[in-house]
């Protein structure tokens, strides 16, 4: 039963990949969507079955077959559903189904073959993602890990005739390979250390080990795995591929580059929480990298002008939050944010897709504005998701973000808390900048075609009427999302509102259900024997003791911090309204006043250029001059050609023997015969 969850999308992939081009769109897209929906229903049933079990052994295992058996090392291809993977499969299949539904409408203008290709990739992605989260050991996870990377490559490069899309796909793949290499090294080191790759076995073995005070084996393993996570989850220093990945179709950005694949790194740390818990140095690095990424990406997001790129940097920033949570040991909070983020970020991306759809491919927010009355459904869902991500109280983002900030503060990382709080202000600001520039203010779209490139003033209304022939896909007034897109948007918007209520903190009278649900996973089942030595002993015990006791001490603090971050959220929204709606000349004046800073942000801190100069170009030069013109031409070709020259040189001498004279040949035969006879006679 468990295996059906990933196998259904795989079936959809096979059908669409092989006969999809001959099927009408309604069949290929409908099949892919229906299979995901069935997979979601099965997931819900399985999770309900899981919930019915006693908390200390909530696990459903399914052994598919024994994969590797070498000596005393065995590895199964097995699936395991526990509290953590339950959250993930619900997110993947649930949001995946909605995005499939959305795509049936969004991709409708493609040809039948491209349409089927799109859905086959999308289904294949879901299969690999489900293998990643359901795998019971590192290798199965790694298969999924690589598979989602492949699908990400295929989908970013979906419009492969477009140079920028093909380049972005390649970049994503190559950057991911850098991280994957570290991940492989980490996995190999795990085999050496634990002689097993099963998550349960490793967690129990790690639990028995002392917490490392210096930089030991566990620290190295976890650091390598974290480097893998920085590639997949777009953290410093390997985040550069994610903004470029926006070249892919928008539903892909929503599914892969916001809701699911990029959170794989966070999931991986949660899955190996016991290992990370015993490597405090790595955890420190994770926390710092996460916080730095959150702030860094947030500042870039503030000045970008492409609607999807703003969301991409926002995703990087929010992933930074999740890693910050993981790094301070608040695994539950990190997974909680992963879960709420999936709703509002998928909603935002799908909303941006609806905007782009409505404007026939326009992505520059400087050429939007005033869309509110044209596309109300998109507008309202987008606003709800923006409010949620900004952290306005009572929506999902508020609960998860506050919890991360609170845990960061309580675990004693006040400096990181400040970074997180500033980022939270930035998040609210850039999201509302996006909302204002896209939906509010004057209309700046449509007239560039009619009146040349005069895209700043002039009443837009006549221009739109001039385009008046409003067929379903004609160049008429922006039209709102058709029903499949609207359904997905509305469901996700509702999710953005209510998703946070599964984990209302105790401080405001909730029960922190998600924490209770996830706790056995992070503590390796039983809380009885906690590690009592080493630097993190106190923390480990704190994790273990029922949350009521700890929050008893901190209710006041938690409420204070909640108040602070709520204020920050409102301040951010207010700031954005002031700067980009009421007083649009202020940002321009600021940009003019600090041209250096503005250019630095607009060019994304020149990180791509830096990587190009320090890594890409040296590798290119080394490959061209050293490996190609040096080794390949001189050594490899030299050896092959040299062998040829040697043979022809020797044969210049040898061919003198073959002069064509029959008598010479007869003489040599005679001499040979005499020599053979002589040998036998005098032997």
């Amino acid at each position: 039963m468990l295996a059906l969850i990933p196998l259904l999308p795989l079936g959809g992939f096979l059908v669409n990949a092989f006969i999809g081009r001959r099927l009408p769109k309604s069949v290929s897209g409908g099949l892919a969507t229906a299979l995901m929906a069935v997979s979601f229903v099965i997931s819900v049933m399985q999770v309900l079955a899981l919930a019915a079990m006693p908390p200390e052994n909530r696990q459903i295992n399914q052994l598919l077959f024994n994969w590797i058996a070498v000596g005393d090392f065995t590895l199964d291809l097995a699936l395991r559903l526990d509290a953590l993977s339950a959250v993930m499969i619900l997110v993947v299949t649930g949001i995946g189904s909605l995005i499939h539904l959305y795509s049936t409408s969004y991709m409708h203008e493609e040809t039948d073959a491209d349409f089927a290709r799109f859905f086959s990739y999308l289904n294949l992605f879901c299969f690999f993602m489900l293998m990643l989260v359901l795998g019971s050991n590192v290798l199965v996870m790694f298969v999924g890990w690589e598979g989602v990377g492949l699908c990400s490559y295929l989908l970013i490069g979906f419009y492969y005739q477009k140079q920028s899309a093909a380049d972005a796909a390649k970049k994503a793949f190559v950057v991911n390979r850098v991280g994957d290499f570290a991940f492989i090294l980490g996995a190999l080191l795990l085999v050496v250390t634990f002689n097993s790759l099963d998550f349960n076995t490793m967690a129990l073995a790690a639990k028995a080990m002392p917490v490392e005070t210096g930089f030991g084996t566990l620290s190295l393993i976890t650091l390598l795995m974290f480097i893998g996570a920085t590639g997949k989850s777009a953290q410093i220093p390997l985040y550069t591929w994610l903004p470029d990945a926006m070249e892919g179709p928008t539903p892909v950005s929503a599914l892969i580059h916001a809701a699911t694949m990029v959170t794989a790194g966070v999931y991986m740390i949660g899955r190996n929480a016991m290992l990370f818990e015993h490597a405090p140095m790595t955890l420190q690095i994770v926390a710092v990298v996460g916080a730095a990424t959150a702030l860094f990406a947030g500042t870039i997001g503030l000045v970008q002008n492409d609607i999807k790129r703003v969301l991409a940097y926002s995703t990087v920033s929010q992933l930074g939050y999740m890693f910050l949570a993981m790094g301070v040991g608040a695994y539950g909070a990190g997974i909680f944010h992963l879960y709420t983020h999936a709703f509002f970020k998928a909603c935002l991306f799908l909303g941006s897709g609806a905007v782009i759809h409505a404007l026939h491919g326009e992505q520059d927010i400087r050429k939007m504005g005033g869309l509110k009355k044209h596309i109300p459904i998109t507008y309202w869902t987008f606003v709800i998701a923006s409010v949620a991500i900004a952290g306005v109280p009572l929506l999902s983002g508020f609960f998860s973000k506050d919890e991360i900030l609170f845990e960061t503060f309580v675990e004693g990382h006040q400096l990181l808390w400040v970074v997180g709080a500033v980022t939270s202000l930035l998040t609210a600001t850039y999201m509302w900048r996006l909302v204002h520039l896209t939906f509010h203010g004057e209309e700046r779209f449509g007239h560039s075609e009619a009146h040349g490139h005069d895209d700043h003033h002039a009443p837009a209304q006549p221009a739109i009427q001039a385009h008046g022939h409003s067929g379903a896909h004609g160049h008429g007034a922006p039209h709102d999302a058709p029903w499949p897109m609207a359904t997905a948007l509305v469901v996700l918007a509702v999710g953005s509102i209510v998703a946070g209520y599964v984990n209302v903190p105790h401080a405001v009278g909730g029960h922190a259900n998600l924490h209770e649900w996830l706790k056995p996973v992070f503590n390796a089942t039983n809380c009885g024997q906690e590690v009592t030595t080493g630097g993190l002993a106190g923390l480990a015990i704190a994790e273990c003791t029922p949350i009521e006791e700890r929050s008893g001490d901190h209710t006041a603090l938690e409420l204070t911090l909640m108040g602070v971050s709520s204020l920050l959220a409102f301040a951010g929204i207010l700031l954005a309204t002031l700067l980009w709606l009421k007083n649009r000349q202020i940002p321009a004046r600021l940009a003019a006043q600090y041209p250096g800073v503005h250019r630095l942000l607009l060019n994304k801190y020149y990180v791509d250029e830096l990587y190009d100069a320090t890594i890409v170009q040296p590798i290119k030069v080394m490959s061209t001059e050293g490996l190609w013109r040096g080794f390949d031409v001189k050594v490899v070709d030299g050896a092959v050609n040299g062998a040829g020259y040697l043979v022809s040189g020797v044969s210049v001498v040898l061919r003198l023997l073959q002069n064509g004279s029959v008598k010479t040949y007869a003489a040599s035969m005679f001499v040979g015969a005499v020599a053979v006879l002589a040998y036998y006679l005098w032997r």
Partner: protein
Amino acid sequence: MPLGHYLVLSGLLFAIGTAGVFLRRNLITLLLSVELMLNAVNLAFVAFGRQWGAVDGQIITFFVMTVAAAEAAVGLALVIGLFRHRESLNPEAFTSLKW
């Protein structure tokens, strides 16, 4: 007659044939010399057969005679072909079949 006499004669004939192959400048004479060498060998076979009272020597001889007849036919045909091509019977004129 002892075997030795036959073998000496056979050896002499073979030597004459060999010398002919190396020394004469006419392709037809060359073929004749080759025939001489074959018949020297035939003589040796027959002599051995008589010495050991076995028919094998004579059987082999028949084979050699058959092959020699075929060889003479093919050889003479080639010689005619070559002569038509080059107007010469000197073996040194035919050296173009090389590398």
